[in-house]
């Protein structure tokens, strides 16, 4: 982390190697009542984060929820207005990779990695190979695509051999293959490096994370395991598309006692939240049939997505960021 230690008011708990820590029993990062206010607007509101050592912690939330602000404070790039950050590792063992990494365009990939940490050239080349950039290690970074720069950012972050690796939207700008490779790489870090990453992609969280934090409008709405999150918050949700007057169908659905809510989306689809899965599976086609409309599609949303939308329902309805969640 270096320079940022003074800025963020970080209080290192001591000097540990990750191997000395017992995962799940030691928290590598904790924050207490962390608050950040930007000219009257509260970006973070008394956030109590707890990241277990060795875990892969996914931080999700709509746009503007405060994810980047929180990660910036943990990395020492921003200072909190109030509250405390406690690290279980030296501040020098923390590195961050921003959502769109930028490097000096006149350095080669190999030089960029080598300059970022005191490592030997072969080790830098190994890291580049690990992120799939071995072929272009001698090329200047200025000509890299966004995906290549993203992967270089990860190599640069890993070069410092961090105990805590903070990744802000690491998969943004990557094609599906690149995204898959990057998630595989992050998965391989489990146990030896604690990874804290923010994302919009709930599928990525489901694939690699063992801990989850949901930020909603600056507040930590949920923190804990993935399974517990789904069990606690998932409410069955379906997306229905019909041929005909969708508004009329919304009115019919709202009259059903098993329907928690029905909303007409801007694309004409209807999002139906139910109290009971069985009743909804039977009742949805019946109501469509009764309305005399053609059923074009009927899809149940993933548990995690449904839980997320349920938890952040107010933001999901009112905030534009909710539409970005997928």
């Amino acid at each position, binding site marked *: 982390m*270096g*320079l940022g230690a003074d*800025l963020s008011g970080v209080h290192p708990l001591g000097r540990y190697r990750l191997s000395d820590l017992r995962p799940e029993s030691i928290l590598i990062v904790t924050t207490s009542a962390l608050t950040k206010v930007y000219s009257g607007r509260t970006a973070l509101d008394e956030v109590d984060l707890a990241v277990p050592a060795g875990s892969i912690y996914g931080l999700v939330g709509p746009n503007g929820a405060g994810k980047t602000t929180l990660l910036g404070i943990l*990395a020492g*790039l*921003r200072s909190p207005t109030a509250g405390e950050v406690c690290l279980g590792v030296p501040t020098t063992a923390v*590195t*961050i990779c921003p959502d769109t*990494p930028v490097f000096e365009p006149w350095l080669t990939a190999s030089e960029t990695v080598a300059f*970022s940490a005191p490592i030997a050239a072969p080790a830098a080349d190994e890291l580049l190979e690990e992120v799939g950039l071995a072929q272009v290690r001698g090329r200047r970074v200025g000509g890299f695509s966004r995906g290549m720069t993203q992967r270089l950012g990860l190599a640069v972050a890993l070069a410092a051999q961090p105990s805590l690796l903070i990744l802000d939207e690491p998969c943004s700008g990557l094609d599906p293959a690149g995204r898959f490779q990057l998630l595989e790489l992050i998965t391989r870090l489990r146990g030896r490096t604690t990874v804290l990453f923010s994302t919009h992609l709930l599928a990525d969280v489901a694939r690699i994370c063992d801990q989850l934090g949901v930020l909603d409008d600056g507040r930590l709405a949920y923190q804990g395991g993935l399974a517990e999150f789904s069990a606690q918050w998932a409410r069955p949700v379906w997306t229905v598309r019909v041929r005909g007057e969708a508004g009329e169908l919304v009115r019919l659905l709202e009259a059903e006692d098993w329907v928690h809510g029905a909303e007409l989306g801007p694309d004409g689809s209807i999002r139906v939240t139910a109290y009971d899965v069985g009743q909804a599976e039977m009742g949805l086609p019946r109501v469509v049939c009764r309305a005399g409309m053609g059923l074009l599609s009927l899809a149940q949303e993933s548990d995690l997505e449904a839980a997320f939308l349920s938890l952040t329902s107010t933001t999901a309805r009112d905030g534009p960021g909710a539409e970005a969640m997928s």
Partner: protein
Amino acid sequence: MRLWRVEWLRLWRTRRWLALLAPFVAFGFGGPILAKYLPQILGTSIASGGIRITAPPPVPADGIEEFIHNGMGLGVLVAIVVAAAAVSVDAHPALGAFYRTRVRHSHQLVIPRYCVVAVASAAALVAGTGAAWYETTVLLGGLPTSPMVVGTALELLYLVFVLALVSAAASVVRTPLMSAAVALGALFALQLVGIVHGAGSWLPTSLAAGLTTVVKTRHYRSFLDSAIIAAAATGALLVFAIARIGRREL
């Protein structure tokens, strides 16, 4: 991180060293030539009223004066732009984050950037002065060694002061363009203060004419106050820049 090497590579690979060297060396060779042939140039030009303009025969000090008058202004301007591009640590937040998370203290960010540009600019100024000295000796006659050395030292002091001013400006604003503009504005304000209050003799900006004055008058002592103030201000500006950049949020 080997930040010193990064800064040398920045200077080398972006060809900024050429931009620094070119104006000083060009005017180093061109200034004395202009001084030598200025009377002939003026003598052949006849104003619309039929008045012939004549100039006195050139002396060796004129060669240096032409170099300082034309080359120093442009050279310092280029140095300001190059320095602003280097010391604007947070011009791009993502790049700023990369550097900031790899140093323990902000002086590790500021000092290499400042020093490398300052050394390169100083080398360019010395090269230009050397060129002007050689050309003057060949065309107009010899120059006294001691005033030339002292005068060059005063010019170097002025240059490092200006670059420290750019570093301080970069800690107040973020972009290279704004940093250069703020530094130029501050220099302009200093010149105005010198004129309005008659404080020119102790202001660092008076050192800009140091070489010419010392070569012509051989009086060093008149620059003592401004040299001391420039040295102190350079240190103070760098401390200010380091402190401000260390406290700045991305």
